[in-house]
């Protein structure tokens, strides 16, 4: 088969089984877009800003486990994609971003819409390529998909100069079945000796903790994790990225840990004598003050990325390997009879943990006559029966969603954990809905975040992705305001939103349904109405209590056992701010 460079890209993507390309055309990719025009197998989703293309593709990858694919033009198209690439990089999401580049002959001459994409993205990709010859396209794309999806996944950029996709130059094309890279051999199986040692240590624990992160989801190891936790009878906590790996409604789950984790999760971590970290990277939002992190614990760390091990926290037993494979091996040892836990100590440990639970750290004022954001999330959980895919933006609403929506399955909680990218939620919801049209998808957001990618309401209309936007509108950049309240004597420097648009009219202008509510008793009916409108995107603008803060909280420089709890549940209603 003789194809041009542009046709090779499209044919390759088909052969790779790509369903969707999220993109935006422009000069340097016109040949490619022309090749796309002549086929129907791959659906191209036209976003309204390249950042959204990367978020939507990223979310598609998060919900399906398959790599997301992005196509953008050179220059501004490419730089607009960078935020989304960095977002995927921080959360280890497999993604292939194809960017157009100015023709090879003018690279380096400051040509129109030229930017050094390979240079700009270098620190925020797993790898990147510049295609220099049309004959290399297929092999480079093969490598790109291979690198993006194996080992610790991540985004890969393939920069293609315009002349490489020239329709007049045709060469034979064959889908490269195999790929081998002498410089890239990601670990798969863990070291059996280390796994045995880890299990031995785990079984001697008196106050064990299982601390599991996003690696569990990426590795599809939820089933194995559940089995391990059930068999051992140990408590488990999740990072923000791990939520859904283990069912949140199970009694062995002590909640999320870290800065806005539960009191019981953080206290358990602090007092624990053996911690097993599974696909988690001891992020600063998890550890709090490093030198006082888990002072009594021996630490086992399973991760596919050797560089994640001992990066911030000293580890006693490291295991480099794929989580699923390592857990399987560990479970096999347990089945062989290596299963004697310290039952007495464990019983006492659970008594202690349950005492911490009695603090009821997530309680809030349910009598308020203002809408509490926590209440909205609880109702959202009930109305969707806990079965929805929830995407979120970044800020207080993100924390409320992680605390009050109990994720019982993996790949249901889609948020920007590492980079903390505002604007992520709406395009992510669209990407998720395209992947699973039959599932309910809600975007939990705030009036500040949503405006960072609001233009995607047009994309939602064009591709009929009826997502529900749950806008927790407190007329503040809530998380910024909270920190200013705690650390800057309530000097609310530029953290409030003046001139907030009329979201109802805005939604309507984009062809959607807008609903605004401001009373607690309206929450449930409004949510029900929104989800009853099966084929419509609904923008639910919920005016919440402006003063609400996220509790509990580990303030910066503090340890796990120094959480700030809500002082009194009945904080004065309508507390005046500034």
């Amino acid at each position: 088969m003789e194809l041009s460079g542009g046709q090779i890209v499209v044919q390759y993507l088909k052969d790779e089984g790509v369903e969707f390309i999220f993109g935006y055309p422009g000069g340097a990719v016109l040949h490619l877009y022309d090749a796309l025009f002549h086929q129907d197998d791959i659906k191209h989703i036209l976003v309204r800003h390249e950042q959204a293309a990367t978020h939507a593709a990223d979310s598609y990858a998060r919900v399906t486990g398959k790599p997301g694919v992005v196509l953008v033009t050179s220059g501004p198209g490419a730089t607009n994609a960078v935020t989304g690439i960095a977002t995927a990089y921080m959360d280890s999401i497999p993604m292939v971003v194809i960017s157009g580049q100015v023709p090879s002959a003018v690279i380096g001459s400051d040509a129109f819409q030229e930017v050094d994409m390979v240079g700009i993205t270098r620190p925020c990709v797993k790898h990147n390529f510049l295609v220099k010859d049309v004959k290399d396209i297929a092999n480079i794309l093969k490598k790109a998909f291979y690198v993006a999806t194996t080992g610790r996944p991540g985004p890969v950029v393939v920069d293609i100069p315009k002349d490489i996709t020239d329709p007049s130059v045709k060469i034979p094309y064959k889908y490269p079945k195999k790929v081998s890279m002498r410089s890239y051999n990601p670990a798969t199986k863990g070291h059996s000796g280390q796994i045995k040692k880890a299990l031995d240590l785990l079984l001697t624990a008196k106050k064990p903790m299982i601390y599991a992160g996003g690696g569990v989801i990426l590795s599809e190891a939820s089933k194995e994790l559940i089995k391990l936790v059930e068999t051992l009878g140990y408590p488990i906590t999740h990072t923000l990225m791990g939520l859904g790996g283990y069912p949140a409604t199970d009694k062995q789950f002590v909640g999320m840990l870290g800065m806005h984790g539960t009191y019981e999760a953080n206290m358990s971590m602090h007092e624990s004598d053996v911690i097993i970290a599974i696909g988690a990277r001891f992020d600063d939002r998890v550890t709090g003050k490093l030198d006082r992190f888990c002072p009594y614990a021996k630490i086992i760390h399973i991760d596919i990325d050797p560089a994640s091990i001992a990066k911030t926290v000293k580890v006693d037993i490291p295991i480099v390997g794929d989580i699923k494979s390592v857990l399987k091996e560990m479970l096999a040892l347990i089945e062989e009879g290596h299963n004697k836990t310290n039952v007495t100590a464990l019983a006492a440990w659970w008594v202690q943990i349950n005492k911490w639970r009695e603090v009821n750290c997530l309680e809030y004022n349910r009598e308020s006559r203002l809408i509490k954001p926590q209440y909205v999330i609880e109702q959202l959980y009930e109305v969707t029966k806990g079965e929805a895919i929830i995407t979120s933006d970044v800020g207080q609403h993100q924390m409320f969603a992680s605390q009050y929506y109990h994720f019982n399955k993996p790949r249901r909680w889609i948020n920007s954990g590492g980079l903390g990218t505002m604007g992520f939620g709406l395009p992510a919801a669209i990407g998720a809905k395209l992947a699973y049209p039959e599932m309910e998808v809600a975007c939990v957001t705030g009036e500040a975040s949503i405006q960072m990618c609001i233009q995607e309401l047009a994309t939602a209309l064009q591709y009929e992705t009826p997502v529900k936007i749950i806008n927790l509108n407190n007329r503040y950049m809530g998380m910024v305001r909270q920190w200013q309240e705690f650390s800057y004597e309530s000097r609310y420097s530029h953290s409030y939103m003046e001139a907030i648009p009329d979201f109802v009219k805005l939604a309507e202008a984009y062809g959607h349904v807008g609903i605004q509510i401001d009373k607690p008793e309206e929450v449930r009916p409004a949510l029900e109405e929104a989800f009853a409108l099966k084929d419509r995107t609904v923008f639910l603008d919920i005016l919440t209590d402006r003063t609400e803060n996220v509790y509990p909280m580990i303030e910066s420089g503090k340890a796990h056992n120094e959480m700030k709890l809500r002082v009194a549940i009945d904080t004065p209603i309508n507390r005046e701010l500034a």
Partner: protein
Amino acid sequence: MRHIISILIENEAGALSRVAGLFTARGYNIESLTVAMTEDKTLSRMTLVTHGSDRVIEQITKQLNKLIDVVKLIDLEDAVHIERELMMVKIKTSRESRQEMKRTADIFRGKIIDVTPYTYVIEMTGTSAKLDSFLAVIDEKSIIEVVRSGATGISRGEKGLHL
């Protein structure tokens, strides 16, 4: 501690900037960096001198290994090794100081490779520490220019860093 890390890396455009970029992005020290082709045209050899605690050096080697273009690397401090650096120094000389300068260069096994009525260029190889010592014993004011290659190294014995 000072470490010499020897890296085999794919001989591709941008490989050097991936390594250099990693050091700036993660805030690691970099004392010197040399790159050249090897007997295998598809590979470059990079020798990097860095400072750090054991923990930092461990992270550096892990992060370098994580770069897709890096094929293999060793920390030469882990084994007995030979270290060499090339230096060329241009020195102002006078009728009175010429003999003394030549004798000093001889002591350090340096060679005078360029002579003008008022200058010498001295070529010297050795460990970076030896080159430092030479510079320390000559009159600082006489130095016109110092050009150093940065250290390279190779392990002793039969083992070597190759594919």
